[in-house]
């Protein structure tokens, strides 16, 4: 089976020697094309580290990351930048948009950087579904947090990336806005065949996904297809355990 993204024996160590922190300790996991995966785990377990390594944002200590079958750990910074620009989309918890650009320019930024034109139909469809049609000329400072996050989502999708990574995309939102964002992520998987990998702390959010991967101490400890919120809640360690 060809994965959109795959990690093989991934190790990530921050720092050197005794002071080094082993954030990822031999992670092997694949993400199918058109799948919506949630990554869960206690704070400090290595979720963000995994995401950064998978997305080519940070260098790995050892192991491989394959995006569309290509090992990106072997690429130069220049090539890696190209991969991020053309094949990967991002949604972050905060600071998603450039303050000086309008919403529309923010959405097309990766395409502008690549010197590509946006697919008009796709752009119109995405903007329509996200309810951003009348907000395109606004700057981020004039948008609500939920709207900003939806602009970031639109940006991640119009470039038609291989995979969209989202690190706690609902972390800064109220539950209603968060739900909207999740619903849209779902829609993008269903109707555009988009691959999505999302880190979240929220079992409700994770329950929207097709699959939940649980991380603890830099290792994958569980992999659940079609998880339910209750199932996930029961797996979560009691608060303050870590």
């Amino acid at each position, binding site marked *: 089976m060809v994965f959109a993204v795959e990690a093989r024996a991934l190790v990530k160590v921050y720092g050197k020697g005794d002071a080094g922190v082993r954030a990822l300790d031999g992670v092997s996991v694949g993400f199918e094309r058109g799948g919506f995966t949630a990554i869960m785990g206690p704070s400090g377990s290595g979720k*963000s580290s995994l995401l*950064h390594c998978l*997305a080519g*944002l*940070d260098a790995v200590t050892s192991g491989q990351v394959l995006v569309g079958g290509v090992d990106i750990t072997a690429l130069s*910074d*220049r090539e890696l*930048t*190209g991969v*991020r*620009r*053309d094949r990967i989309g*991002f949604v*972050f*918890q*905060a*600071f*998603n*948009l*450039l*303050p*000086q*650009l309008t919403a529309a320019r923010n959405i097309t*930024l*990766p395409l*502008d*950087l*690549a*010197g590509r034109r946006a697919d008009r139909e796709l752009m119109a469809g995405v903007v329509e579904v996200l309810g951003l049609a009348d907000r395109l000329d606004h700057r981020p*400072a004039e948008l609500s947090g939920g709207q900003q996050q939806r602009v970031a989502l639109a*940006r991640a999708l119009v470039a038609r990336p291989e995979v969209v990574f989202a*690190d706690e995309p609902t972390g800064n939102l109220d539950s209603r806005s968060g739900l909207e964002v999740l619903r849209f992520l779902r829609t993008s998987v269903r109707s555009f065949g988009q691959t999505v990998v999302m880190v979240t702390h929220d079992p409700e959010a994770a329950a929207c996904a097709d699959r939940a991967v649980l991380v603890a101490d830099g290792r994958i400890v569980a992999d659940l297809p079609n998880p339910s919120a209750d199932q996930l809640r029961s797996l979560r360690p009691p608060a303050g355990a870590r």
Partner: protein
Amino acid sequence: MSAAVIRTQLSGIGRRPGRLVLTGLSVLVACFLVFGAFLARDIAVRATADALSTTPMATDVVLSVRGGTLFSAEQLARVRATPGVAEAVGRVESTVRLRGVQRSHLTVVSDPGSGPLSRIRLVSGAYPAGHGEVAVDSRTAGRLSVSAGSRIALESGEVRVTGVVDAPADPGERAYTPDFVAAALGGTEYPRIDIRAASPVAARQLTSGLSQVVDPGQTVPMSIRSGAAARAAEVKDAARQMDRVFELIAMFVVVSVGAAALVATATFRIVFAQRMRQLALLRAVGAQPGQLVRALLVEGAVVGLVAGVAGVVAAQGAGYLAVVVARSAGTALPMPDVPVGAGIGVVIGAVLLTVAAVTAPAFGAAKAAPLQAFRTSSTLSAESRIGAYRLVLGLVLGVAAVGSVAVLVGSWPSTEPDGDSGLALLALAAMATFGALIALGPVVVRPVLAAVSWPLRRFSTVGSLATGGVGAAPRRAAGVSVVVALGVALIVATIVGTSGMTAYLDAKLAMRAPADLIASGSDAGVDAAQVAALRGDPALVDVTAFRTAEVPIGSMSGLAVDLDPAALPVLRSLLEAPRPGEVVLAQWAADSLGVGVGSRASLGPLSLTVRAVLTADGPFASAALLSPTDLDRLGASAPVVLANARGSGETGLITARDAVRRLVPGTDVSLLADARTQATGQVAGLLAVALGLLGLTVLIAVVGVGTTTALSVHERTGEIGLLRALGLSRGGVRTMIASEAGLYGAIGAALGLVLGVPFAWLAVSALDLGVPLTLPLGQLLVVVAALVVIAAAAGLLPAWRAARVSPVAALATE
């Protein structure tokens, strides 16, 4: 509490030394310039005193006359015979006229020729020993085409050249010979006697006893000084001349110090804005605004102190280094002193300047509402609106500027206001304009940015990102661009002014010296056959003959010439040849005849149509330029020939002159080229010096661009990380940040250009010299382009740092 606030701020400096460097950098550079100028003056004064000193080091006693009476040969002999005197020489410089060559003369300088009291060194031949003999320096030998053995014809006879010497680089044509020969040639005696004593003791005794020997009757008022005192007086004299130069330099340095204060203010504003959350938090937990202001002022003082000390120490080091480099390059310069008092003064000045610069940003920052602790800093400098107070101030200054210009222009064209008051008014207007620009900067920057960034935005995404980055913080852009504008406006005004001046001087010189040389021929002038021969000579070009005649101009009389302007390149563009029946008049001639272009003027027997009126005199100070046919009717003089040298430089001239002498025997030949090269050289030299000094202001402005860009990079780590995550390459980040720096330069250059050109024109008009208003577009574009490139280069270091920002930085949540 106050102490606690200060402690938090100062510990902030300690943890972020980079910021200290950035905020203090402009002050540091300013201190470097001020103290450097001080040291340079000191070195220059001592060096010129050494170079120009007419008193050799070996001189122990200097006798000089006061008033008209000179020392006689007999008195000199008595001095020589005095016990304790090892050597005594009479010092005299006399000027003798050379025969034939118009207005040229030879300066005959007395010198013993050898020994410690001599200032020259024999190169070839022998040093003169008797009457009628001289040695010349090598430059003079070339000028007069003489060597050991040849003769120089004087109006009063002839001298024989016995040798060629190396002499101090003095101007003019000079000959050296023993004192009695020099005195005899000039028909004069000695204003001064230099004495070398047999021993230091003898020197002291001589100082007190000599006047009795020289002048027992005490009829000649004289002064007796030690050689050291004479040299000290020369140093003082050199210093006085230097000070005139350094007063000018000081003016430019003051402008740069002002620019440094502006840059420091802008930088502190940015730094405080970045710390707004921290300051707001202090307010939230109960710090009073006054306490914050005090803490920030103390911080400014610390920055000023550190920057001042660093600048002074760096200048001192650079002074030593410069002297060492100059010495290894063969220029003897004295080592700089260590003027502690001046250094301390500069440091105190730095502290005061920095505290003044930090005041406005400190009050602004102290107003931080506690709520701002919960806002992001990037939204603060994005404000392009300015307070009502600032707006009113800017508008008032703008109105004042426009008003003073209107008053100035309204007073034209009156003959009565002297240029000075006009210029003073203009200086006020310029300052008011600049003040208005500072006040209204944030409002002005956006439209200017939109205009100058058009090509960037149009053609590249990175370019529009850079434009967005600059536009997102208009206050910041205004802070630094205004300083760039100051430097550019000054440079542009200088260039425009000089180009007008050059055009004016060129025209004037073209009239005074239309060709390299002029030959009058024998009594019958230069005949047609000789002119033809000259035309055929390979050393000469543009050979043309002309004649002159006296004409009555109203009640006065003036010179008329039939020179063909088309024959000489420098006149071709300035004058058109009058056809028969036409005349070109000098301004004064037209005025006194009461005629203008197109009207008829009567010159003696002639009645002519005025073809043109010149702004000044005609060629060779003539009043009228006529056609040859008309000049015939006035009784023309014998023809005279003008010609240019084909070869360049001194050799070309000498060859050309010799050719004329050969082909037109017995003629006088004058080199007109001398006057021209001298005058144009002066203008070019002045422009170079002025631009060099204005470079100081630009240097400060560039420091401002660099620091602003660096702070902006620091503040936008998240944004840069996001761009990297979204696929902007490292090179793209570098280009973006360097472009932002270049845009600061471009905004400043555009503003400077728009302000500098009109002010230069106004200044040129206010001087009312008839200097034309020119627009040297080429040079101005070079200045603008150079500035944009330099500004972009100043952004390279921050750009390089920005490129190292990891894309992960975008994900870091505060």
